[in-house]
């Protein structure tokens, strides 16, 4: 069964936020909200400095705390690609999932339901990549099936050093950052 995930090369990423605005136009994200964002981490003291730039979003975890806490099943794991989604007309807006997410990836949509990155499932089902992956000018983002040993994402994970976010939370995130 396929498990969709992302591999992002932080060496190439310049943090331009193209992924942020592409997602917003593709998905009609309400103004003032973002489903993905850029985090920069700078280490050291001048002039010995290093910086990692990451495009972050919902990690579509293999062990999603946002799904287990949902009282109505609105927050659920789709059969297709094991993508974590919210069914808006089942969501009551209790916000337990927001409190449960270690990545603060969700937000309250102005219409009342909880919203977040969907891996652009509507595009993926048409054979396209998510909007953020498709727009990135540095081509640093890769999307694919983590269960397919031959996929480009797995090839990258085999050959490059990588890390996930907050592995200590036990969520088993499916977004990997190459460093």
């Amino acid at each position: 069964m396929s498990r969709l995930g992302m591999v992002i090369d932080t060496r190439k990423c310049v943090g331009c936020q193209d992924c942020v605005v592409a997602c917003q136009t593709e998905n009609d994200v309400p103004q003032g909200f973002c489903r993905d964002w850029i985090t920069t981490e700078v280490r050291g003291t001048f002039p010995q400095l290093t910086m990692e730039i990451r495009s972050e979003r919902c990690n579509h975890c293999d062990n999603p705390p946002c799904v287990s806490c949902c009282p109505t099943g609105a927050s659920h794991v789709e059969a297709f690609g094991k993508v974590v989604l919210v069914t808006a007309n089942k969501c009551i807006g209790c916000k337990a999932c927001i409190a449960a997410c270690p990545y603060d990836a969700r937000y309250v949509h102005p219409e009342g339901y909880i919203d977040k990155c969907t891996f652009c499932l509507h595009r993926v089902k048409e054979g396209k990549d998510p909007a953020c992956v498709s727009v990135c000018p540095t081509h640093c983002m890769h999307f694919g099936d983590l269960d397919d040993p031959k996929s480009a994402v797995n090839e990258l994970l085999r050959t490059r050093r990588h890390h996930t976010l907050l592995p200590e939370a036990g969520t088993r995130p499916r977004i990997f950052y190459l460093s």
Partner: protein
Amino acid sequence: MLEVTSTRHNALIDPSLHVWSWEIPLYLFVGGIVAGMMVLAGLAMLRLARGDDPRNFFSMQAPLLGFVLMNIGMLALLLDLTHRLYVWRIFTTFQVSSPMAWGSWVLIVVYGVLMVSALIRLPDAWPWLGREVPVLHKLSDAVVTRPARVAALGWANLVLGVSLGIYTGILLNTMVARPLWNSAILGPLFLVSGLSAGAAVMHITASLLQGRPAPQGMIGGAFSALLQPMGSQHPEKKTAHSLVRYDQVFLVTELVFIGLFIINLHTSSASHLSAAALIMSGPYALPFWGVVVGLGVLLPLAWQGLELSHRVAHTVLPAMLVLVGGFTLRWVMVNAGQMSHIVPIASLGQ
């Protein structure tokens, strides 16, 4: 040195999580009070079933009050929901892993038990109603005269009260993302705090009605029935005293559990240490130590101790302090908890 910046600025999420403000603490507080009241009522029912003086039983339960308080809590919960037209969705499924789902279904049973418990006392507590609807007397007698049925109702109150009290803590406890809540003692702590608050409420209502004859009219009878269905007699002085004694036990236990909670935070992980700072020295230190522990536990404990050894006059002020402390405990936990977050391993040692 480590500098971290993020471009995200989602409302209620950034710069710090704040999706729950006063509604959830109020609901948790009210739930805790009702849980406490149900446990006390359950214990009284079990003693009644074993042949104890009915007057002791009558003074230990106020299910109609519990029913009203529960509605206030539910209203607060409903106000918190941002998509509340769909609230019925909770009851179209049962999500085994969701404490909130458990709580929602348990609350249905809680309501049922509260209503049965109220019904059996109603005709005596509200004489006007008892005269208008005589069948209520028949219903009441059908339970009150049968020890087995009283015992069953008692166990129901006891079990549901404990469940309600603990669940409010478990709801928060299961969130790995919020290290401040990530302690197994949170459930028992909320239960004990609920018991203490429940006893305080009973103590206050008992003191209000002490020594007064039961009103015979409709309105007065309704009001009195709300506070403490007693029938023709009102609580005696020793009832209030026994409630104070119960409260002392609960307060001491609460103090122990708070101590364990603090120790737990300091002996777990970096994330827990960081969360502890929020209530030890950070923005919530004063509300926590000053109000929750000081005003809400230590002061009532000392004061009520003096009352019990007859050194000072008996008042309801300590009980009111307990209530202030109880609400503040939940308010601090819910708000400080949202501020706490996992400290990434990658950021340590910089």
